């Protein structure tokens, strides 16, 4: 089980409290689809993904990004209990959505980069490290129920 120190938790929540879920969520998902275009395979029904501009301006992508990031809020509130927290979502991603868990790692890394652009000075190496630990913890929790 992943253990977060008090410092790591503080580093994570200090950033999280200032995150605009729609803006950061939309940007993160949009960038995932642009930087790793094969991830678009999960979003065939989401409308216009024909260019970077189209993707970043796509309201359905934005809304979905917000949904994804809202779920990440669960992680921030349950850092000591990620596997249980994401058990149901893990089953969903396996059984219904059929998402290769590698994609969770890609999304996590993109989120860290987006946070870096928004939080500049505050996004020190230690803060980055805490966030990388969180996103890999979430990625592992989301893949835990795969079969």
């Amino acid at each position, binding site marked *: 089980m992943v253990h977060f120190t008090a410092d790591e938790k503080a580093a994570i929540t200090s950033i999280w409290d200032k995150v605009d879920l729609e803006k950061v969520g939309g940007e993160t998902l949009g960038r995932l689809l642009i930087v790793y275009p094969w991830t678009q395979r999960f979003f065939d029904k989401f409308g216009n993904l024909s260019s970077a501009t189209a993707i970043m301006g796509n309201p359905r992508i934005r809304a979905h990004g917000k949904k994804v990031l809202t779920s990440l809020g669960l992680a921030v509130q349950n850092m000591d209990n990620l596997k249980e927290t994401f058990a149901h979502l893990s089953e969903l991603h396996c059984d219904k959505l059929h998402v290769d868990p590698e994609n969770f790692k890609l999304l996590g890394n993109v989120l*860290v*980069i987006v946070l870096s652009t928004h939080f*500049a000075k505050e996004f020190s*190496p230690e803060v*980055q*490290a805490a966030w*990388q630990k969180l996103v890999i913890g979430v990625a592992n929790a989301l893949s835990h129920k795969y079969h």
Partner: protein
Amino acid sequence: MVLSAEDKNNIRTVWSKIGGHGAEYGAEALGRMFVTYPTTKTYFPHFDVSHGSAQVKAHGAKVADALAKAASHLDDLPGTLSSLSDLHAHELRVDPVNFKLLSQCLLVTLANHHPADFTPAVHASLDKFLASVSTVLTSKYR
């Protein structure tokens, strides 16, 4: 994976914006990597890897110079990086997984210092560039 004309343009533009900060960013990326991915320190047992270390600064400059050279020879990365490729294959033998870890930290560093320039398209081009460099550096491993 192929670098398009647009990718090459984006990469060259970013490097011109980095200007004289290459060494600083190289050191910062290494510092981020050592803190975020402690296993990477196993390749530097002879280094002081603490914040502000002179050895990390010097090594960061080396990494930055190599990337700058690659960025200005995008049409022939294998040729340009050939001796570094030999070095990594036969002497350093850094496990290939680590190139992704350093690449992530380089992207975080660049995004941190140039948020306005770090558009999604530029982000994509840089990711491809670092992946291409990583591929070349591990190409002679076996």
